[in-house]
């Protein structure tokens, strides 16, 4: 890696800058949802990018993998924070049923939220996360599996279940969006 020419390093820098501009906001949104706090979401995201700046050699994600790399690292850091605060019981990832068995605390249903977003908040946090990765980031099942450590078939299962529940809930809410 040390024999990389200056121009390659320069290109790398352009890529990283581009990734920062493109992904900082989506990442803050993602981290803030996990942490339920924007401020700490920002800190985690800043740390995530610093990790990206510092990662060297073989560990560097290739250009097409930067996005899922950032989400993965961001997620890990966010869960580190939760773990340190003892706010989360750690379960082995990949075990859908065990993780977040309890439904999410129902937040006050702010006025103006569409029935979809209201219904989304009723889903278990992990399911919300998967739904968000799919519909906010456009990740493939494979990307989501990489980021969350779930298996692809688990991702498929969660998405299917979630969409089903959301449809029912939205229909019950009168079908408007």
């Amino acid at each position, binding site marked *: 890696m040390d024999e990389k020419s200056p*121009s390659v390093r320069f290109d790398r820098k352009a890529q990283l800058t*581009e990734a920062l501009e*493109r992904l*900082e906001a989506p990442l803050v949104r993602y981290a803030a949802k996990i942490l339920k706090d924007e401020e700490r979401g920002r800190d985690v995201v800043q*740390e995530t990018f610093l990790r990206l700046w510092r*990662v060297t050699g073989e*560990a560097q994600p290739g*250009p097409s993998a930067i996005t899922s790399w950032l989400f993965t690292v961001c997620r890990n850091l966010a869960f580190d924070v939760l773990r340190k605060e003892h706010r989360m019981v750690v379960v082995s990832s990949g075990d859908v049923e065990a993780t977040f068995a309890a439904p999410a605390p129902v937040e006050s249903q702010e006025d103006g939220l569409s029935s979809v977003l209201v219904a989304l908040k009723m889903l278990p946090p992990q399911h919300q996360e998967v739904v968000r990765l799919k*519909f906010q980031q*456009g990740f493939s099942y494979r990307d989501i599996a990489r980021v969350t450590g779930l298996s692809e078939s688990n991702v498929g299962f969660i998405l299917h279940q979630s969409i089903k529940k959301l449809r029912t809930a939205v229909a019950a809410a009168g079908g408007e969006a």
Partner: protein
Amino acid sequence: MKTQERIPEDQLTRYVMGELPEAEQKALEAVMAKDPALAREVETLRGFCGLLWTELKKEPMPRLKPEQLASLRQDLEQGASSSPPRKSRKIWLAGIPLLAAAAAAFFLVKPQILSKSPGAHGDAEEVRFVASAPELPKDEKASAGKREAESVVGKEVVQEKKKLALAEVRRDQPTAASSPLKSGGPGKSMAGAVAQNRAPAGATGAAPYGALADSRSRRLIPKPEMKKSDHYAAEFDDAEANGADLGMNTEAYDAIVDNPFRATAQDPLSTFSVDVDTASYANVRRFLEGGQTPPKDAVRIEELLNYFRYDYKAPTDRPFGVEVEVGEAPWKPEHRLVRIGIKGKEGAFEARKDSNLVFLVDVSGSMNGPLRLPLVKQSLRMLVDKLDANDRIALVVYAGTSGLVLPSTSAREKATILDAIERLEAGGSTNGGEGIQLAYKTARQSFVKGGINRVVLASDGDFNVGISNQGDLVRLITKEAKDGIFLSVLGFGIGNLKDSTMEKLADKGNGNYAYIDSLAEAKKVLVEEAGGTLVTIAKDVKLQLEFNPEAVQAFRLIGYENRVLAHEDFNDDAKDAGDIGSGHTVTALYEVVPKGVAFTPRGVDAMKYQKPAAATGAHDGELVTVKLRYKEPEGSKSSLIEYAVKDKGRKLADATADYKFAASVAGFGMLLRDSEYKGAATWDQVMRLATEGAKDTPAALGPEQRAYREGFLELIKKARKAAPSP
């Protein structure tokens, strides 16, 4: 018909998400084609997922604080990449003083922070940030009013289309797609489920990243090194093995209605824009080689004609020359056929101006499959090989999100570029709009003044997520073309080709559209004709013909249906039209009904007041005047060229080889389209003319062109087999 096995619900979800392997996808589509209830359910599900997209984008997207961003940028500037190697997890906090302090403080004073945290969504603040966020949803309400650029007009597409937008209809009613078609529907070879050929996409994805991404490195999909012949064999064998009537695919074509005969007495003018696209030929060939007739609307006769070169003289003083030949219409001997040939000035590709190319590559899930991304990569490699130090190349990919894979790089650094191409992999959904924006941005950043600035889009054209608002897209492309960044479109893939979108985009972007179905085709478009594909020598090229009512009763333009212009647009320099690249030839055919031949114009009564002008004899023997307008690539004022054409009464037997060949291609197209104007055309006649045209291929065109013509003979044989008589 098999009884329908129960489709597992989650398979439908997978299908809608574009996550089903191609084979299962085709199988499901086959079932859906026979089960309207299931098809409806899928549409509902698709609709709901669309709603999720729209609604979830509304969640606030807070950004980093300006000081956080600044500190990150500074850190990057100061060469973070040369900083010490990875630190172990335990000490990372210590290794990053500034943030470590912040983080430590935040762990220590947790209670305070917590107290202000839950649900503290400062709404006003969030909205402010959303307004400048780069990843904004491009569609609908989510961003409306937040960025002025987003003055979205939902159904623009419909207005943009001159013709009936069959594409949309098909999407909505999958089963309808097969009905108007002969011989088993369009889907037979589309069903070419290529499961065993697909790039082993899943093979690399298993291990999640560690917290420090330690074992992380580039994930490469092993490059499927396949030969063209293998692709064909595999895809089409599979198609046959896959059963007769998977009568459904999701390809989309705009409807084409043949230009009718126009009575000269009513309107002696005919105006159209040139078109150098060739995609339809390769696409038609793909169908025929799979043993099917192509959908009628996939057959654009002008693109069949322009796939071939004809021996028109290359001008030296002007951007292009015009040649006209008049002869007998083979399918209706009492009619005349006027062949207009335009030839762009030949500039050696090596002598081209400096170029700034941005490849925009679709890497969404739909690009999996041997004739898609791997072929894109091979095509790009071939093009890169032709380029040199005067060229710059950037690579942008798009899927669910888009990214700059390679910033603009001098083509001298071939290894860097080839490496970046090599690393492309497919996966995720498609958001073509965002990718295009990033591509244009990249092109602007390394704009070469007075040079070639071009975005080259490689896709199956399925803009299925996010900014699918074609109106916005078209506006963007039109604007960029005005600013000097042109767009070329390379279509790939089968079964899901959005032909109508692709052609429209290239059209608006002052570019051309080629369909690439094989390595050989890639070579033709990107190597042999690189000049024409990349170097524009004249833009907004329009033709207007005025037929002489003393000699002509009626006339009909064959093909160019979606290029017809209003007569007044001819002199209007603000009206956009087609472009001609270096060495391009454009051929147009008019079928003419001479005076004295029995002819009843359809649906129009004889004129009551109009009297034919007294025969002055001033233009004796003149059949038609051909007028042509064009602009220099960077010009805004057009120049005019004019020719008067006489008919010397030449018989078919005396026609040139080029004439015979072009007439044969037109007959071939009309037969495939089952056109009402095909007259007495038969496959035999088409074959005879093509054989003569190929045998006497002008030597000046070179051996490749002869080979292409000979390839056409093979295609006629296949068409004769696939299509019903005559």
